[in-house]
């Protein structure tokens, strides 16, 4: 599920809602169990579905340990201009969001840790595009693509912004991880609330990172997610908490929960693949999120449980953010405030991953 508030999005201007028009409802395909995903075809876009995202989060060890990065491409089929013949009709809208958590160098300088981010938006065929046969999506010069090289397959991430830029290759060290039932991942208490969800943990990151005009060689570990769906958010849900962790030693852990207005869990799920490749799925009854410490944002006034205890079956994990203030405000498609950032995970298992918390600064609408 998750990501990107883009989803929720009234487009650009508050009154220009991208929600499916009431007069001409379009038939989005339903997400159902039992579909066999095929790769690299299913790394590509699925433009018939209402929404889709390709999402990479990671932690760098060099040039500086605990540098977090994130790059997301989000595709939306809002149901507008469907009847238009024009090749540039706004049938498919792409958004991209990039962030960088710079931990700061407390010893040498008094430089403070900070979170940088940048975003782009475009319609397909007009400065942006995607492939339907492989992962290759771009907005302008920002691009996420999969390539087959002699040494094997890899992903390439390219983005530039005035504050920071990066050009990374992500080399798999493990096979793909199909979430839920062979990629069919339920998001709520109803079979229609589901997505197709493919993860690729433990990707080796290499490349260059430019921050404040300084170009540096970078390396680290990343997590790739690709998810497409038509409906995922329960009518009662106001937001979600999501966590994806590259565990020390090679394992991978994903957990999420949907929250209602009282911050109670509506639905939850977790997947744990250990270093040997054994996958265990945990249902809502086995997954719980308990806030340990809240951090309040002076900007939005929202309070986020940046430190949580997460129980998954017999496992007990605690999150510890590298920086409390990893609150983001996406101005496009509309102003949406959420928290997303690099955290350390400690407890029964240890590692680093990304924690995303939405709906704390107001109800998230899909």
């Amino acid at each position, binding site marked *: 599920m998750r990501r990107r508030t883009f989803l929720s999005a009234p487009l650009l201007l508050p009154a*220009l809602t991208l929600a499916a028009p009431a007069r001409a409802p379009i038939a989005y395909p339903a997400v159902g169990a039992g579909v066999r995903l095929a790769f690299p075809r299913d790394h590509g876009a699925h433009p018939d579905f209402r929404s889709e995202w390709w999402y990479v989060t990671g932690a760098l060890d060099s040039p500086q340990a605990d540098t977090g990065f994130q790059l997301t491409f989000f595709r939306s089929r809002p149901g507008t201009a469907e009847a238009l013949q024009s*090749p540039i009709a*706004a049938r498919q809208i792409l958004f991209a969001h990039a962030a960088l958590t710079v931990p700061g160098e407390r010893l040498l300088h008094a430089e403070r840790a900070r979170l940088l981010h940048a975003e782009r*938006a475009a319609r397909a065929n*007009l*400065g*942006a595009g995607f492939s339907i046969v492989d992962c290759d999506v771009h907005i*302008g010069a920002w691009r996420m693509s999969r390539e087959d090289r002699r040494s094997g397959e890899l992903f390439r991430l390219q983005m530039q912004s005035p504050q920071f830029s990066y050009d990374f290759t992500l080399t798999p060290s493990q096979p793909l991880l199909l979430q839920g039932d062979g990629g069919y991942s339920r998001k709520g208490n109803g079979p229609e609330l589901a997505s197709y969800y493919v993860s690729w943990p433990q990707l080796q990151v290499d490349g260059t990172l430019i921050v404040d005009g300084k170009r540096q060689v970078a390396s680290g570990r990343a997590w790739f997610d690709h998810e497409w769906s038509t409906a995922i958010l329960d009518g009662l849900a106001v937001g979600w908490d999501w966590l994806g962790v590259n565990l020390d030693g090679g394992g991978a852990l994903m957990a999420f929960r949907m929250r209602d207005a009282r911050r109670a869990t509506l639905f939850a799920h977790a997947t744990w693949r250990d270093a040997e490749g054994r996958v265990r799925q945990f249902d809502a009854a086995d997954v719980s999120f308990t806030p340990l410490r809240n951090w309040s944002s002076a900007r939005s006034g929202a309070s986020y449980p940046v430190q949580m205890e997460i129980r998954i079956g017999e496992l007990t994990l605690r999150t510890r953010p590298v920086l409390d203030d990893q609150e983001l405000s996406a101005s496009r498609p509309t102003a949406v405030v959420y928290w997303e950032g690099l955290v350390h995970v400690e407890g029964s298992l240890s590692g680093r991953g990304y924690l995303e918390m939405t709906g704390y600064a107001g109800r998230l609408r899909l």
Partner: protein
Amino acid sequence: MITAGNRSALGTLAWWLIRAQFRSRRAATLLSMLAIGLGVALGYAIHLINDAALADFARAMKSVQGDPDAVIAARDSAGSVPLADINQLARDPAVLVVAPVIETRVRIDDSPIPVSLIGLDVFSAAAVMPQLMPRHDDRAVLDNIFAGGVYASPTLLERLGLRPGDALTLVRGEQRWRTTISGDLPATHPDEQLLVADIAWVQQRFGPAEAVSEGRVRLAPDADLSTWRTTLAQRLPAGLLIRAADDDSARLSNLSRAYRVNLNVLALVALLTGAFLVFATQLTAVAQRSTQFALLGVLGLSPRMRLLQVLLEGLAIGLPGSLLGLSLGYILAVAFTQLLGGDLGGGYFSDSAPLIVPALVPALAFLALGCLASLTGAFYPAYLNRTQALAQALTSGFSQRPAAIVASPSRLALPALLALAAFALAQLPPLFELPLAGYATIALVLAAGIASAPLLTQTMFGWLSERPLPAPQRIALQNVAQAPLMAQVAASGLIVSFALTASMVIMVSSFRVAVDHWLDHVLPAPLYLRSKATPLPQPLLDALATPDAPFARIERMATASLTLDPRRPKVALLVRELERDNPAARLPFTGPVLTPPVAMPLVWISEPMHEIYRVGAGETLRLPLLGREVDVFVGGVWRDYARQFGAVVISRDDYLSLGGDFQPTDLALWPLPGQQSVAVAWLAPPIERYGLELADSAAIRELSLSIFDKSFAVTYALEAAAMLIGLFGLAVTLAASVWLRARELATLAALGFDRRMLSTAVMLEGALIAGVGLLIGLGCGVAIGSVLTHVVNPQAFHWRMPLAIPWPMVVAGAAITLAAAVLASRYAARQATRLAVAQVLASAQ
């Protein structure tokens, strides 16, 4: 001797002298001030108006184009930028965003006034043209911009009386789009009347397929524009161009540059006239006070102080004059922009009156310019004052000139040399695309005229004064012949002002005659029909082709524009139905008409195009036509006074064979014999329905000539001012010479000359000086008129014309000026008759 202790006494003395000077020569001083003020006012007003007009134009451009770092567009206005090129450009890492737009003109519900429809992509537009961002309205029928509604600027909504949710039909040629108003454009300028819609909907309804009008680029902050642009220009397809913001401003300033420079030269003339008046005033002032200055000199006022005192007095005229000029200039600027628009009737910018915003630095610069002019005028009198021999001045007053006044060969050599230099300068090509050498020629002609004045005066009047004549006449003649300095000062003012006035009259008249002839040639048909910027509707064209249409002949024309150089205004492309073998039947050629040696497209270029791009008949030209570069043969150069930045005519057949789409916008119509009124009645319904414009050739001719006259309105006003100043200069100098010759006149009075005879002598003197001035002025005027017609006009505006001197007008002008000069001399004569004879004679030794 002056010591530091009595500096303040010196200050008081200077102040006292200035005050005395102002009091005793109130009229002269005020007029000098006025002249300086006029020059400053004119220059400053032109500066203010142009500044405001350019800002207004830039603002208008910005409000529809935003402020992109660069624009990728087609060179041919009928062309477009392929989507593939936009998409490739977007992937350039140096490009932050490329905002594609489709711009077209549509008529709303068959309203006769077309408005701009801009198809944009809200995702990219926000970064480049935020002023065009639409605001969705709750009353809209459609959910959002992608669903196909249009957004109108508040001004347009108000004009149409429409509200969000209302339906409307947009019409462009054959295509119609029925849609609704979904909201407004809150950030557009109040002047703007435009529509915005989603780019895909505009493309769907009006095209172009698989392409857009242009891509507006915002570069990444760290990208270097010039490097990026150079690299991109190399791989850009031939039909496209890249235009940066500085190109836009260069083009803007090119648009009105020549016109502006011409007006500035006129301002300079006014300023020079002001300097001349200061010169005349101060010279007489120095002469009249030579005894006082000599006395002060004996009392210890150093020569340097005497020099400074006169300069100070010049400044005392220049400073208030300039201040007056600044305020007058501001008032003029506001008045003219309200009356004539930002281009003073030149027709380069939109009709809206731009806002005049004065800035400090230019105002100070013009202030300094005015002061400089008055100081320049005061310099020679100051120098004379410094070099006066004190003893002589104390006893016998001001010494005019110690130099010999014989007609030596060297005195003939100077004007001859100047005339020769002027002739040589007139042959030079333009500098910085301005006729600077031409202006220098004009200055030299004036200098030659002034330099020849003493020679002519002495030769002519010296000879005349030896004829047997009544005493007053002989005295007047001798006075003129023997007091060259004063006579020269008086005459040169008239020479300059009359020469400039006559030359402008000659130039404007030549131009008007040429335009008149040209209109005869370019308006062969009795009726002309045109649509405004959109193609003529096909049903009308079909109806015109049927036999019952009351027309003997119809010629269609389509217009487009080509960008040959992004820094220059576009060149008009006229696709016309004319015979390839006989273009001279329709185009007024200035030279040979050639046919291409091999089969290739044939074009005929206008004279401005020939001058600007340096292409001639028989040469091959590479034109950015229809998305590619096409080599065309130039079959001839034709006269065109309508399009200053160049025009190319191509036959419809050639255009079609190049793959062009001929969409006529203009028709030339020949009604059946005797059926003109039937034809007009036949056309009335479609004109009403499609919002077309019909004009008969007489009306077009009348309108063209009235626009022509309007654009020279400012010039006429200036000429009148110059003439007044010249006449006043004459009066002032004559009065001064009367004062200088007080003793002589008093002697004459004592010898029995009555007031009438004295007055006649002075007035005759004035008439003689004016006569010489006018004679030389006329000669110079004809010379300058030819320079304006044959050098300045072709170089500044790229059009040529034959010289046509309106003799009756020029001679009548000279006669009126002469009469006015005689009247002006009355002022001096009155002074002569008021002399207290006894007192004057007594004060002399």
